[in-house]
């Protein structure tokens, strides 16, 4: 199983191993399948053709490089300037062991959970060192996210989360109970029924990896061991200044991008924003499916760029485990556009523990939406989305008639998105109803157990 796992890891990290652009489209297609969560096997079978283990690919990579570079130049032009500097500076942070060059390499997969595509692609390009166990290495952004989630459950970072709290939290990741049980066994090294911060990060990372399609390892990988995590990240980087500078610069760079980029950034933006973005990832994941479809259909010429952008979409998975977000986001915001209204509606209905998460999800959604809909200001629920869109379109109309056609197209796309979002929300609604029934049944079962246990105490 480990060999297969390694193969999949290698498959998943072609960019890391080779650090070439060639891997990216391959990787992006892989990520696409991840997002759809149904073509994983196909992707895996394709891996041998582009096995990263082999020497750097010769002709095929070159062939693929052309469209990639073309797409990349479009997307990265403005961001490249700032990438190298903070990127280089971050390396020592992430890889204290000294493998500075390797650090970025490991990030691409992790980036699925964190940074925008541009960053992840940049890293893939730059990092030529290979890490064979990369899916199990936590990046700085992921670490931040996990730590923030830990804080939301347990204010004291040096304390631990009880088993029941962690169970409720991880159950929202919608993984099966046996898988969650297995992940718990992997991560709870001291078997005390509670999770310390490193254990929690390991468990969260395993859940993220599992949601991304990686099979769970036989044993806890060395990079997820509590000692390793504590040594690698000695203190929670609540205020990682370097990262903050990154995140701030990212949104600024994204907004000027074109529509094609916006859609991607909307997905990726969750990675940009340290916590809030990731919170939305769960819904983003589903949103990705629809947005990606739209993006792909719309931007044929920019497919390579789109695919490269899709790399980060897997990062969206990490937010999925986030309990509050998964509930709220999955319900309310399959698409970033619908985030507000549904999230608010969902926020009121779920349990109180979801309330604290409601705010972070809404924030990232707004952010995502801004770059996504430059033409349409999506500050309202889906229904209102068309309103702002139309309003936005009305404003420039008197000014510049040339833009009217573009705006019409934007409005049409917004309408399409809203319709898709409605369909997705309806599906989510039905799924939630089923979950509600299941929870009722579980409650009944628990009450029965309680009844059975009562006589025992008498004995």
């Amino acid at each position, binding site marked *: 199983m480990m060999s297969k796992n390694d193969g999949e890891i290698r498959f998943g990290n072609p960019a890391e191993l080779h650090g070439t652009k060639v891997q990216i489209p391959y990787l992006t297609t892989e990520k696409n399948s991840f997002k759809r969560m149904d073509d994983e096997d196909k992707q895996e079978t394709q891996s041998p053709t582009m096995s990263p283990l082999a020497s750097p690919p010769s002709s095929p990579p070159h062939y693929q490089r052309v469209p990639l570079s073309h797409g990349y130049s479009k997307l990265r032009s403005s961001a490249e300037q700032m990438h190298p500097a903070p990127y280089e500076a971050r390396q020592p942070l992430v890889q204290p062991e000294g493998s500075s060059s390797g650090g970025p390499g490991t990030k691409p997969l992790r980036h699925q959970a964190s940074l925008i595509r541009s960053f992840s692609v940049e890293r893939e390009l730059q990092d030529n060192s290979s890490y064979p166990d990369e899916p199990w290495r936590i990046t700085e952004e992921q670490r931040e996210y996990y730590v923030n989630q830990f804080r939301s459950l347990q204010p004291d970072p040096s304390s631990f989360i009880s*088993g*029941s709290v*962690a*169970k409720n939290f*991880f159950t929202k990741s919608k993984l*099966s*109970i*046996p*898988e*969650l*049980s*297995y992940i*718990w*066994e992997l991560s*709870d090294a001291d*078997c*005390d*029924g509670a999770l310390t911060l490193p254990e929690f990060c390991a468990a969260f990372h395993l859940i993220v990896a599992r949601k991304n399609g990686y099979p*769970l390892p036989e044993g806890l990988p060395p990079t997820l061991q509590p000692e390793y995590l504590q040594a690698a990240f000695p203190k929670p980087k609540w205020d990682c200044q370097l990262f903050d500078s990154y995140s701030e610069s990212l949104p600024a760079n994204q907004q000027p991008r074109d529509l094609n980029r916006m859609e991607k950034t909307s997905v990726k933006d969750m990675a940009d924003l340290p916590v809030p973005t990731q919170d939305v990832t769960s819904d983003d994941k589903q949103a990705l499916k629809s947005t990606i479809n739209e993006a792909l259909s719309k931007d044929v010429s920019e497919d390579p760029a789109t695919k490269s952008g899709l790399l980060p979409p897997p990062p969206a998975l990490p937010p999925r485990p986030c309990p509050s977000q998964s509930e709220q986001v999955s319900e309310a915001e399959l698409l970033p556009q619908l985030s507000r209204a549904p999230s608010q509606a969902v926020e009121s209905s779920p349990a109180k523990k979801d309330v604290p998460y409601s705010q972070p999800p809404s924030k990232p959604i707004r952010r995502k939406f801004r770059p996504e809909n430059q033409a349409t200001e999506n500050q309202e629920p889906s229904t209102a989305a068309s309103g702002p869109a139309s309003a936005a379109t009305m404003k420039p109309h008197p000014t510049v008639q040339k833009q009217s056609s573009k705006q019409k197209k934007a409005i049409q796309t917004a309408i399409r998105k809203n319709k898709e979002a409605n369909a997705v929300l309806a599906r989510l609604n039905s799924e939630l109803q089923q979950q509600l029934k299941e929870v009722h049944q579980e409650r009944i079962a628990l009450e029965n*157990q309680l009844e059975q246990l009562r006589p*025992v105490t008498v004995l």
Partner: protein
Amino acid sequence: MAVCIAVIAKENYPLYIRSTPTENELKFHYMVHTSLDVVDEKISAMGKALVDQRELYLGLLYPTEDYKVYGYVTNSKVKFVMVVDSSNTALRDNEIRSMFRKLHNSYTDVMCNPFYNPGDRIQSRWALLPVSASSPVQVGPTSCVRSSPGGPYSCVRSSPAGPLITW
């Protein structure tokens, strides 16, 4: 060394059974099943004393021609039954006790998992791995990605290809 290890719940249904695959597992299942009566008998005999004073290790439950069956019960009435080969005369009582201790520790670790509902089948791969390491009993690699654990009266698979037995 042990050829079969079984964890029985309070209601006398199996939570975990593993035996060396070369043998006929059905036979071991039957032996464990029949040993439950002996366990209950021993518990009731000691039951008059306080629970704290009750010995957890029950000792030899009953011997057969080829095998000996040992028992152990926890404070929550979960029973561990171990079948050892009679030909292995070097196996002393202390070793059996230590094996049961390890089994108990592993079972406690399984209980610590918040995703484990008491009363479910133990499907963890490592749930009782430490015990299997000390005995030739092969812990079948039950996949934890299977569907949710069955109800209290579902069968227990002693190996991926083993027979299904409903108790």
